[in-house]
C-alpha cells in the first residue's frame, strides 16, 4: 500500500503497521544517507546513522502524533538526524587517540543545506507519485525525454508513438508534477 500523505503514513506507523515501516525506511533512507555525507561520516557510520535514526523513530513512534501546529515533520526529522550524527562523531572522537570530547564542528549553513535537501527529497517523492498517477506510456515519455534527456525522436521510436506526443507528455506530466510537489509541501 502506498500512503498518499505523510500523515497517513505516520499514523500507520503509530498503529504498528509493518508495511508502513518499510515505506518509511524507503522514503527517508536516501535523505539520511545524504545528511550523513554532509556530516562527513564514512560508509559504516552512515549505516549506523540510518540504524539509529530508524530505531529512535521506532521507539518514539507510539507516542508520536503528527500535528502540524506543533511543528514541521521536516524539522523534527532534521533534528533527530543531527543528534544521531553527533553521537556517532562523539563516539568516534572518543576512540581517536589525542582527541578530547571538545566542541564539535558541524558544517556551516547547515539549516539552509537541510532545507535544500528536503526540497530535493520532495521532488524525488513527487516523481514516484507521478508514476502512480499517470499512464505508463506518458510517464515513460516524460522520464526518458525530460528527466533522462533522451532525444524526443528516439523516445518516440522506442515508445512507438509520435514526437508530438512526447512533447505533450512532457508538458502534461510537468504540470501534474508541480501540483504533486505543491501538495507535498502543503502537507508539511
Amino acid at each position, binding site marked *: 500500500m502506498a500512503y498518499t500523505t505523510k500523515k497517513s503514513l505516520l499514523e500507520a506507523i503509530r498503529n504498528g503497521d509493518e508495511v508502513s515501516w518499510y515505506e518509511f525506511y524507503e522514503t527517508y533512507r536516501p535523505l539520511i544517507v545524504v545528511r550523513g555525507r554532509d556530516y562527513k561520516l564514512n560508509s559504516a557510520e552512515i549505516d549506523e546513522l540510518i540504524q539509529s535514526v530508524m530505531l529512535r523513530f*521506532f521507539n518514539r513512534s507510539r507516542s508520536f502524533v503528527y500535528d502540524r501546529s506543533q511543528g514541521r515533520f521536516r524539522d523534527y526529522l532534521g533534528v533527530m538526524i543531527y543528534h544521531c550524527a553527533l553521537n556517532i562523531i562523539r563516539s568516534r572522537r572518543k576512540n581517536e587517540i589525542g582527541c578530547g570530547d571538545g566542541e564539535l564542528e558541524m558544517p556551516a549553513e547547515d539549516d539552509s543545506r537541510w532545507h535544500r535537501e528536503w526540497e530535493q527529497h520532495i521532488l524525488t517523492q513527487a516523481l514516484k507519485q507521478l508514476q502512480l498517477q499517470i499512464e505508463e506510456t506518458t510517464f515513460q515519455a516524460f522520464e526518458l525525454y525530460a528527466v533522462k534527456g533522451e532525444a524526443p525522436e528516439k523516445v518516440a521510436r522506442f515508445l512507438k508513438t509520435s514526437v508530438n506526443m512526447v512533447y505533450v507528455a512532457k508538458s502534461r506530466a510537468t504540470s501534474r508534477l508541480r501540483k504533486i510537489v505543491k501538495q507535498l509541501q502543503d502537507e508539511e
Partner: protein
Amino acid sequence: MHYAIHELDQYRSRTMNLFRRLACRCHLLHCQKCRAQLRQLEQDDLFLAELRQSEQRMDVPENPSEYRKLCGIFEEERHKRESSI
C-alpha cells in the same frame, strides 16, 4: 490560430525547421498567449533541471541486508517492550 505546446517546445529546442521557426518567431511577436506559453515552458525547464539534480543527489543504492538487519532489531525491541509490559 495559436501554436500547440509541442510546436513551441520544438521552437525552443531548435528542432523546428528554419521556415517554420521564422513563422513562429513572427507569430510570437504579436501573440501574447503563445508568448506566455513559451515562458511557461522556460519555467518548466528550470523546474526539470532541479528535478534532475535532485534525482542524482538522492540516488542512493538500495541495501536489502540493511533493512533485514533493522527488522531484526525492531523485532527485538518489540519483544523487550512486550515483556516489560
